[in-house]
């Protein structure tokens, strides 16, 4: 791989031990994947933030790096933490867990990383442009930025994204290259998609079938950013889809090569079967919305549903701190809390320790959450649309 003079200095340790180690990691990755050179990145999003995910080894790794005065070179955001960083005590997150989570956050902050924890950085102030090279790691954020925005990123591991932030660079391979962004399978959709959960079910089904291919969707009549975020998140969880195209909806769909693709069909029947498959429980102890993190539109919708109502069982909606503050200002938080629900910021159900908070069955409208909750959080899952889920808790 071609390295500039400055990059060679980094590799030889002239710019410090941490920079050398981190640069060595991405040079190695670049060599493995046949990158021709390093490219500057516009922004980074780092996964591996929850104490539940990275444990003591990850915590010590980050603290060690922060103690050596390491600083990131570009705008860097974080994936969700394992708890609400402000209201953790009130929401019942365990104290020991909180102590370790706060250690992790302060290590990140020391490195100059913006300590807002969200899987939707694009809704919270880290918005790449079309064709911008970035190094993001959370799988749904990777899918959204590649597919809906048309920015370019590989699916980075937590440490390789951190290395990109510290070095300001990433190796030029994979989805950074136009020829690697071409679709490899066509998906014909013949079904009405009304709720975000319908997009989640579609994504779950397609991800299972196509694994790490690049799907080109035809027949999705209309979808906004909330729906496309649900679709991409589910496909990245049940498969390893980092990029999809959708006719008439995503920016690269008109530019790609679409001839001669293998085709799969998805109709109403397949979606109904997916709903059945994802339902492993009944009568949820708690309903958790906001996977990926809710937009202000989704919070407003829940607030409308809960206006002047009383919940018998808890409903949470997870979101970024920025959206939470907007919800506070709009009075949505007050309405939701008055009904007995909660807006939970900075975290999500998948990375928080809900299994140790007494919950056994969780209701979700997210294909991604339905995919992960059984193994990560030992939950039975009720997968349904938001209307059904919320009405069931009243």
């Amino acid at each position, binding site marked *: 791989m071609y390295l500039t003079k400055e990059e060679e200095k980094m590799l030889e340790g002239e710019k410090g031990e941490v920079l050398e180690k981190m640069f060595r*990691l991405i040079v*190695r990755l670049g060599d493995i994947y046949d990158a021709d050179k390093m490219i500057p990145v516009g922004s980074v999003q780092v*996964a591996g933030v929850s104490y539940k995910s*990275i444990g003591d080894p990850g915590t010590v790794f980050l603290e060690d790096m922060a103690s050596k005065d390491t600083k990131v070179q570009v705008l860097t955001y974080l994936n969700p933490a394992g708890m609400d960083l402000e209201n953790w005590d009130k929401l019942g997150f365990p104290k020991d867990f909180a102590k370790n989570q706060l250690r992790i956050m302060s290590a990140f902050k020391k490195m100059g990383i913006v300590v807002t924890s969200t899987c939707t950085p694009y809704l919270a102030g880290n918005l790449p442009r079309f064709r911008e090279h970035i190094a993001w790691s959370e799988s749904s954020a990777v899918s959204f930025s590649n597919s809906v925005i048309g920015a370019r990123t590989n699916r*980075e*591991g937590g*440490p390789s994204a951190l290395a990109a932030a510290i070095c300001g660079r990433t190796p030029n391979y994979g989805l950074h290259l136009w020829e690697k962004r071409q679709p490899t399978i066509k998906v014909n959709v013949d079904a009405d998609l009304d709720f975000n959960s319908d997009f989640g079910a579609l994504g779950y089904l397609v991800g299972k079938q196509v694994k790490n291919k690049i799907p080109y969707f035809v027949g999705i009549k209309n979808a906004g950013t909330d729906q496309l975020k649900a679709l991409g998140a589910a496909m990245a969880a049940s498969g390893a889809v980092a990029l999809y195209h959708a006719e008439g909806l995503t920016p690269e769909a008109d530019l790609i090569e679409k001839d001669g693709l293998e085709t799969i069909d998805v109709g109403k029947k397949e979606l109904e079967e997916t709903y059945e498959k994802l339902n492993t429980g009944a009568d949820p102890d708690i309903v958790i919305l906001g996977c990926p993190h809710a937009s202000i539109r989704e919070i407003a919708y829940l607030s409308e549903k809960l206006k002047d109502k009383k919940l018998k069982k808890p409903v949470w909606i997870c979101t970024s701190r920025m959206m939470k503050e907007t919800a506070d200002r709009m009075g949505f938080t007050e309405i939701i809390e008055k009904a007995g629900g909660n807006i939970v910021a900075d975290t999500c159900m998948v990375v928080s320790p809900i299994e140790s908070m007494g919950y056994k069955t969780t209701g979700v409208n997210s294909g991604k959450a339905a995919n992960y909750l059984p*193994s*990560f959080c030992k939950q039975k899952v009720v997968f349904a649309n938001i209307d059904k889920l919320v009405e069931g808790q009243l």
Partner: protein
Amino acid sequence: MKGRMISPGKTEGTAIVSDEPIGFYGGIDSKTGIVIDKGHPLEGKCVKDKILVFPCGKGSTVGSYVIYGLKKNGVAPRGIINEETETIVATGVILAGIPCVDKIDIKQIKDGDTILLDADNASVTLQ
């Protein structure tokens, strides 16, 4: 067998083989090294000190930290052999310093085989 070096080093051990991909986050307990992925062919087995053989990684990008954690907790496999190593596993093995080679026809390797893994020379030898 000749492959591609992902992470350097030389080691020897007993093979534990999965014909299905492994997702490390939520798939292997970093404290014990035991496979916890429900329904996975290796469920309940321990990867400690083994040569772990599987086609490719899958799932969450946090998997790299799990591999690093396995090493720090002393329950890591001695080496990893893949058909195709993707970035999550590659990052994990490089950080943890676990020898790893890919582009190997893993169907040639059986559970319990003694394997010499010489990642420096990208070679895998059945003893």
